């Protein structure tokens, strides 16, 4: 008979020390691309501008690889407002407005033993009533608008709203963004965002990382 807890102890610790120490790995094209030469290049998401790549539009496809390379940095997010009152404990409720499934699984990846976000006081909750943060993923879907609005009004305050991934930020290359109906406190870029990027962004919006 297998004694699961004993077998687990034998495996040792695999959890990262991030954000105290450097991230061990990252999904290259989920980070914001940086220019390596001046050659003009086509971007299907129209994310390339004079000031670089727009994190809201970039869909992590790597089609720009003749002129750009992955930055491999964990800074693919932008914070509008931080909420230091959530430093101790941070409960997330995820809403899928119209995703391909990868953002959903990447957000929940921060719970797997390699990241173990609970060591940082980050948890998931099954109801918006108990949530400190609402992570909204996917493109605009008409039927989901009242669901999202109801979830926002059900949340207790203080709380933060997060737009998660390229779909709600720009509509990706096939849909409409959610920015016209939601004012976010934090936007996380990437298609989908890498778990290390997610952890760093969440730590920052809680005021735990400068």
């Amino acid at each position, binding site marked *: 008979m297998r004694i699961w807890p004993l077998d687990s102890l034998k495996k040792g610790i695999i959890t990262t020390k991030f954000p105290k120490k450097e991230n061990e790995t990252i999904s290259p*094209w989920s980070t914001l691309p940086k220019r390596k030469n001046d050659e003009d290049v086509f971007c299907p998401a129209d994310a390339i501008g004079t000031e670089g790549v727009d994190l809201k539009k970039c869909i992590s496809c790597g089609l720009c690889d003749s002129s750009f390379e992955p930055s491999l940095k964990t800074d693919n997010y932008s914070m509008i407002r931080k909420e230091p009152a959530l430093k101790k404990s941070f409960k997330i409720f995820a*809403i899928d407005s119209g995703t*391909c*499934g990868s953002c959903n699984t990447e957000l929940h990846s921060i719970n797997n033993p390699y990241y173990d976000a609970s060591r940082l006081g980050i948890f998931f909750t099954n109801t918006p009533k108990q949530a400190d943060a609402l992570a909204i993923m996917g493109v605009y879907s008409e039927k*989901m608008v009242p669901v999202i609005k109801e979830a926002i009004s059900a949340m207790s305050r203080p709380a933060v709203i997060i737009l998660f991934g390229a779909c709600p930020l720009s509509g990706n290359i*096939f849909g409409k963004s959610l920015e016209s109906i939601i004012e976010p406190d934090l936007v996380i870029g990437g298609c989908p965002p890498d778990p290390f990027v997610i952890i760093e962004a969440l730590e920052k919006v809680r005021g735990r990382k400068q």
Partner: protein
Amino acid sequence: MNNITGFFEKDGKFYAIKDGTEIIEEISLSELESLRIYNPVRGVYNHGVSGENVFPFNYGPSTGGMIETVDFKIYTYGERILSLDIITDFKNRNMKITGHPYQEAILIMERFNGFHSFSYSTLLSREIEQKLSMQVDRETVKTRVILLEIERIISHIFKTARLCEAASQNIASYWLLALRERLMRTVAQETGHRYMFGINTVGGLRRKIDCNKIVEVAGKVVSEYKAIIDGLTVSRIFIDRIENTCKVDGQFQRGPALRATGTQYDYRQFDPYYSSMDFKPVSETGGDSLSRFLVFSSEVFQSLEIIQKASKGVFGEYKAIDSNQMRSGGIETPSGDARIALEIGDGEITFLYLRTPSMLNMEAYAEGIRGNVKTDIPFAYESFGLWICEMGCIK
């Protein structure tokens, strides 16, 4: 008669796609109406019932318990499920591929189901290559086969983890999630993306991929997966939860859900990429969640064998031969076979029909869950490997 597995309308005529053949046949509307398979026009999987003290119990559309947005309307008078409506269109994305150039169409297709993105992008790339009578080199075929099987392993490990979580086998669930993460990190290092986005293109692959490291890590991951499966299959707590849960028979469901009913049907049997593999599908006869679990866990070991054979084997060049006749290609995604009907012109997609495995498996799930109790819902759901994103409209 071959099983009809999909149908579509084009220029006022109806066409049927059948199992075991790529030829598309014209079909009358009256024949279509008598089919048992999911009708995409209907949109809602409606099985409402009424009776004394029967009430609909709503679960969804947005809850922490489900990965994706879906609304279940459970008809019950207490604990037993009399029937189940599944409302999947809350997150309908109405994706439009027609009118897009090939590469953009492939990018959109990857985002149709990001979890099985490589299967779908390979399906579309290969179908365009067929239409263009394009020759694909042996290295591309080999890498595609390896990555398709890696995607299957990742998907099946995730499904096992979700099943363990539903059955409160939390340690096993976390072990499995760690295995999946290990494999995904290797995939990210070698392919540039954790979900293999941006790799496929018409005629080949956009990045040079060295599969040796992926194959090596897959070997270690699968051997640890075996140790976990050995532990789960002797756990009465786990087996009791999934045995006799959501029993389905019939022929219309896809993938492991179909093979768990004793039907040896797997699109890889007909797939030219697998022609040198001597491929034989894994099957079970129970038709319940346990049988589905046994099928997809065995497929993880089978996928590793295919990967190891492919990495050592020599593939022939894959020459697509297109006939002018309308045909339907397919691919065995981790959830079952997806079928496609495609037309192209002037460098862009002009017509697309896609039948995904979840379209049919959702109907099978709704039928099988009748008579079970509410706590069986998560075990049954996870054992099918259903993806709501696959249910959306794509043109």
